């Protein structure tokens, strides 16, 4: 057991990619997705996790093919400062979608959940909400079904997504909370045996 109480096996010791850990509590491989990354899988034992502030994570899957994935991106301000630079988001979505298609997904069956896009620095910028608007518009333009999630607001979020089943959970983080503390609180909740509860849009809070 590590000092944080997590039963983790560092996957690189098992010749897997970095930042992929076997969580002994649930028996799943947890893959941590950070900004600019994307991961697709057909492994039902993989859980994709990320922490979001203004960033967006799109969780996309094909329920028939049994493949899914997650990306994590943030649209920077454009050079002129009066709009958001869309190209990074478009590219992030394309990488995710192309990865799913390579695993056997059919574009017509894709469905997505969106998370993030919070205006964490309230009053200073609405970049989070602009990210959320971009992601919604992207799904609409590309004809991808938008089946749930949780975007906007002003709180950071910790997300878990089971790509094969489409199950998603989120933990709303206090704006002042350090992500490292979040792991501790998550463990505390798990040890206390607190159950998960269903909320709207088929997203669970944990």
């Amino acid at each position: 057991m590590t000092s944080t109480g997590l039963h983790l096996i560092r996957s690189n010791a098992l010749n897997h990619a970095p930042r992929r850990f076997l969580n002994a509590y649930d028996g799943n491989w947890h893959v941590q997705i950070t900004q600019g990354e994307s991961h697709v899988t057909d492994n039902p034992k993989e859980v994709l996790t990320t922490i979001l502030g203004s960033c967006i994570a799109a969780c996309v899957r094909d329920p028939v093919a049994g493949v899914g994935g997650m990306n994590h991106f943030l649209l920077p301000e454009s050079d002129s400062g009066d709009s958001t630079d869309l190209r990074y988001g478009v590219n992030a979505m394309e990488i995710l979608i192309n990865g799913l298609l390579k695993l056997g997904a059919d574009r017509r069956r894709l469905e997505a959940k969106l998370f993030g896009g919070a205006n964490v620095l309230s009053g200073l910028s609405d970049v989070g909400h602009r990210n959320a608007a971009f992601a919604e518009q992207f799904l609409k333009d590309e004809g991808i079904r938008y089946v749930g999630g949780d975007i906007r607001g002003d709180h950071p979020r910790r997300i878990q997504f089971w790509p094969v089943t489409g199950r998603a959970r989120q933990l709303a983080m206090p704006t002042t909370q350090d992500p490292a503390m979040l792991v501790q609180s998550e463990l505390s909740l798990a040890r206390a045996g607190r159950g998960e509860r269903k909320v709207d849009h088929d997203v669970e809070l944990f």
Partner: protein
Amino acid sequence: MVAAAKLQTVVVDDQLTMRALVRTGLQQIGITQSREFPSADEALQNVLVQPPHLIISDFNMPGMDGLEFLKKLRANPALQNTAFILLTGRADKELVVRALQAGANNYLVKPFTVGILKQKIEQVVGALA
């Protein structure tokens, strides 16, 4: 100098959002004559009838991919000299080499700026006016 407003361009990408981004970029550099297609199959049927001056095509598309599209273009005498720029999602050296060997004139790695788009086009067709 090439008159940008007279340059007939075809944009091929399965994502509407990417086509819109390319269109906006083209418009910003004065290229207003562009036709867009969501698949290489549809684009091929069109350009066989109405050859453009420049084709900007994605590589990774369902059905016919950008490389196969390029090979079919080059197999047609009427399209052997049409300028072709391949859009790629990553800087894949092997793919770029294969594309150039198949007759691509240039490549463009996403995400790209309007400045890079213009630079890549000018490297193929000459300075835009």
